[in-house]
């Protein structure tokens, strides 16, 4: 970073040096030329000419180096920020997506992280370069003429500080507005793309496109309004530059007439002024970049703001000696008043086979969310393996328990990839065994690409029942001591359902604890204890 800064200053100063020396060279040569033969010979042409070439070379090299160094830093920061955003989203995930659309989060990941990282190249670097080079320019000017230096200094302050400040004030609201609208647009787009089928059938397309158009128009107008201000500030800047240049010419000529400085200094001072303004002219754009970065920061950081709690992240065998115990647990989702569980008790011992039955929406699936600490419970105690659940990390739970959740997600890619996500060390034999046990092996074998068969986003190339069986295969493959099935047979005909449950129970070790969540008691061919969930309470069904 320091390197980039040094190079940036070097490039800017050699720019300044190049023009100033050339100006001086021309003026001095012209004067010498007028002075006659003797002065012509006495004039040292070599030194300034060499200086001109030196500055020219430094300028090219340092400019190139500066750009490479700066962008390298920016891109590294962007990459790290993106990974950081993603990593911080993980622990907040199912709860967070209630308030934030995935499109919004994607915007923060893709666009905001990018904007934030450019702080270095678009804000820090130009500001510091302008500061250093501006001071050098004023200092050099002061060594020739104090009065001119004062003029230059005040001109630079107006153009580099006051104008950007005003522009920033004027554009603040607009920038926030645009970012917000763009976020909405991205969210709308992701929703619209994923819901294309339903929107078409519902005849809602015209409405969606109209809404999109309005958004686009609003963003467009706001953008132009910002640009009018920003580029107005830039225009004012160049006008100011000419005014200050004229003033400095007047001062310099007056000084020359009173013989304080030589004539050759006048064009030099003038060129120096023009060049010094070049240092501060990017500052309006810098102010805008700073604004955008601040808006981006305001959006990224709160989203990624997580409370760090010390959790037990180590898995140990002792966890499997005791089962799951819930005592007087009350749980209520955030921003809901009705609790899902009210003072419930539940004990599942290791090795048990349990069916959990309840009405739709009664909170069966919420049990999984509580066990994996996706949501907090408010009262009571839950222990897993004799350890307080609050101290157990989700990762540890994942090592003990496999879940086929109702809203399982299959990832873009092949069957193999999805199986490997479930169990990274599985070999092909194990994969086929799991697929066969899930009653989907035959289907995969029959498709030409086998395990490499591609399934689309969210597994759309598979039918509903096939996707669910693939999710079952994932759980079987993981071979964890506990398995929780959430409506495993949805979308299956009775025959397949029966086969599936039987082959599933066959293939898993006898010691595996199984919790099967369902609403269709009569259809489960499932040995073991049956627990009913009614009005937020668990109760054993007497058989």
């Amino acid at each position, binding site marked *: 970073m320091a390197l980039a800064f040094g190079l940036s200053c070097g490039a800017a100063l050699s720019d300044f040096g190049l023009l100033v020396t050339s100006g001086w*060279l021309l003026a001095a*040569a012209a*004067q010498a030329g007028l002075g006659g033969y003797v002065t012509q010979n006495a004039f040292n042409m070599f030194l300034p000419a060499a200086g001109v070439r030196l500055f020219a070379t430094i300028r090219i090299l340092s400019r190139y180096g500066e750009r490479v160094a700066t962008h390298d830093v920016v891109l590294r920061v962007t990459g790290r920020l993106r990974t950081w955003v993603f990593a911080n989203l993980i622990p907040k995930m199912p709860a967070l997506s209630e308030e934030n659309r995935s499109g919004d989060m994607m915007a923060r990941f893709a666009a905001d992280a990018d904007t934030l990282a450019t702080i270095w190249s678009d804000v820090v670097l130009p500001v510091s370069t302008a500061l250093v080079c501006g001071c050098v320019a004023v200092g050099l000017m002061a060594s020739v003429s104090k009065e001119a230096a004062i003029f230059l200094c005040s001109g630079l302050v107006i153009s580099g500080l006051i104008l950007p400040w005003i522009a920033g004030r004027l554009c603040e609201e607009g920038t926030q507005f645009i970012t917000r609208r763009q976020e909405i647009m991205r969210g709308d787009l*992701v929703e619209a793309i994923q819901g294309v089928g339903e929107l078409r059938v519902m005849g*809602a397309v015209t409405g969606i496109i109209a809404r999109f158009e309005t958004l686009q128009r609003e963003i467009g107008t706001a953008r132009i309004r910002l640009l009018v201000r920003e580029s107005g500030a830039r225009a004012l800047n160049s006008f100011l530059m000419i005014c200050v240049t004229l003033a400095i010419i007047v001062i310099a000529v007056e000084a020359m007439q009173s013989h304080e400085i030589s004539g050759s200094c006048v064009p030099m001072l003038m060129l120096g002024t023009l060049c010094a303004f070049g240092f501060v002219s990017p500052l309006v754009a810098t102010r805008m970049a700073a604004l955008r970065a601040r808006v981006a920061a305001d959006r990224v950081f709160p989203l990624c703001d997580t409370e760090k709690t010390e959790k037990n992240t180590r898995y140990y065998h002792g966890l499997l000696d005791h089962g799951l115990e819930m005592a007087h647990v009350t749980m209520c989702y955030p921003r809901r008043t009705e609790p899902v569980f009210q003072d419930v008790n539940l004990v599942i011992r290791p090795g048990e086979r349990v069916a959990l039955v309840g009405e739709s929406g009664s909170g069966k699936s919420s049990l999984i969310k509580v066990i994996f600490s996706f949501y907090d419970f408010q009262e009571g105690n839950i222990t897993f393996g004799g350890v307080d659940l609050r101290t157990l990390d989700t990762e540890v739970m994942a090592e003990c328990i496999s879940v086929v959740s109702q809203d399982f997600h299959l990832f873009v890619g092949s069957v193999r990839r999805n199986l490997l996500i479930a169990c990274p060390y599985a070999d092909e034999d194990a994969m086929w065994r799991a697929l066969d046990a899930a009653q989907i092996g035959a289907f995969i074998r029959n498709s030409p690409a086998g395990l490499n068969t591609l399934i689309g986003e969210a597994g*759309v190339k598979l039918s509903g029942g096939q996707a669910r069986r693939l999710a079952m295969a994932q759980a079987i493959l*993981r071979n964890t001591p506990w398995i929780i099935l959430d409506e495993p047979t949805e979308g299956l005909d009775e025959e397949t359902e029966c086969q599936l449950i039987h082959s599933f129970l066959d293939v898993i070790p006898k010691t595996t604890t199984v919790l099967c969540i369902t609403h269709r008691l009569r259809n489960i061919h499932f040995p073991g204890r049956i627990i009913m969930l009614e009005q937020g309470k668990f109760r054993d069904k007497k058989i």
Partner: protein
Amino acid sequence: MQAKSENEEWSMERLTRRAGRKLAPCLLVAGIAAVLLVVQLMLLADLVDGLVFRHRTFDSEKTVMVWVLLAAGGRCVFQWGADILSARVGVEITSAVRRDLLAHLFHVGPVGLVGRSSGELAATLVDATEALEPYVAHYIPRAALMMVLPLLILAVVFRVDGWSFAILVCTGPLIPVFMALVGYRAQAVMDRQWTQFLCLGSAFLDFLQGMTTLRLFGRTREAVRAISVLSDDYRRTTMSVMKIAFLTTATLEFFASLSIALVAVVLGTRLLAGTAEFRSAFLILLLVPEYFAPLRAFSASYHARQNAVSACTKIVGVFALPELMGAEQQVTEKSVSVSCLSCENLSARYDADGPEILAGVNASFCRGQLTVLTGSSGVGKTTLIRLLLGQITPSAGCIISLDDKGRESKAALSIGWVPQRPHFFQGSIAANLRLAAPDATDAQLREAAGQADALAFIEATPEGFETVIGDNGIGLSGGQGMRLALARALLRNSSVLLLDEPTAGLDGDSQARVIRSIRQNVTGRIVIVATHRAEMMQVADHVLHVSGGTVTDVRTLRGVVA
């Protein structure tokens, strides 16, 4: 055919031509600004020369100073105007591309989008179109201006000093040549960069939406690593793009600096020898940076052009998706009068060379009848429903809709649909329901929800119909989502109802209520239900068994109800 015409509509050449026409006034304004700049510099050179070497007084130079200020002011105003005009065109063009893209996606339909990740599509719609803006707003005007300002300056220099003219003429044209040489490789790298960017976006969205699954598997760390690797790949490619871009700029700067140095030294020598005058030398020194400035601006936005070309490839790629669904047809009075849907020899496959999912299906679905499709999982029930929805076109055969008088009707069908995995949008329950019927009153919402057995759980929430649900129906249980989707389909009051596993995730009591209201809604409608549930089959008029690509009528319980 339509896809093709639209596809060409936004190819790079068309885009450029279209933008060029709109940019004409902007170019005129920018041209005036350029002329004013040259005038301003000439006046400045005159002023300095007069004051320093000709010992003129301030009084005599007052008019020149006023003119300098006027020229500078005018230039700033015109430049400002040109900026605004070009930005307007940029916004206009990108908005148009985006609108057309979105409309196209709706024409492609859900089946056509299978395998295209939505993250990638969203990134194409937002970021790739965004990349066109600098191309339109900066590159095109600068490319045009590059023809004007340097030539103008050359003309001035030619009048003033022959030597400098020669230097500039020699170095100027070298720049585009060298830039082309350096930029030659950049395009391929840039294409790769875009592919990686879209890949990163789609991976992020996929991981994000599957985060619960990842956490349940305890595999989040691998996902973070995958994202980090993808980001790093993207960084490396971007960096190589950047390096090439910087090299082009460095080439330019090399020539610019070389020319300034050469001009300065040559002029210095000649001034010393007295063969040149200061005024023209100083003017040339002022003009030389301006001679290279548009070239430099052009090369800076040359990157924008390459970026836009690559982005445009991605955009054209989306436009090239076949429009499986075609344009939306307005639902009319005629739609309501459809009395029968008849499939004749209907076949379907997803890939041109893939296996046939359905082969030669003959079936008819009449108004006032409830037809149940059954058959083991993966056999093609959903495919048949997709055909009826028009989401895919049959590979052979056709679906004919007949009106009351038994004539073939071409009117668009009004359909209510409950898919296996219903999709919801972030917003209140009421807003989600009103997507199907924007003018529905509160009473109608309640009625539809009641019929779908959704009223009880909606009213149990403190905010009732105003309860906000997340996108993808987060906050709803599986059965609740299903019932909400059914309510939405019923609200549409359509002439055809297509229900794919509508009782999935429902317990016995709720299922009974839902089946009862589906049965009630059969009157005056064509209702087709895909299900495995025996309870549903019991109330059906027909049960069609789908297997081996064909459909057999296994049971007609109630007979034909007129």
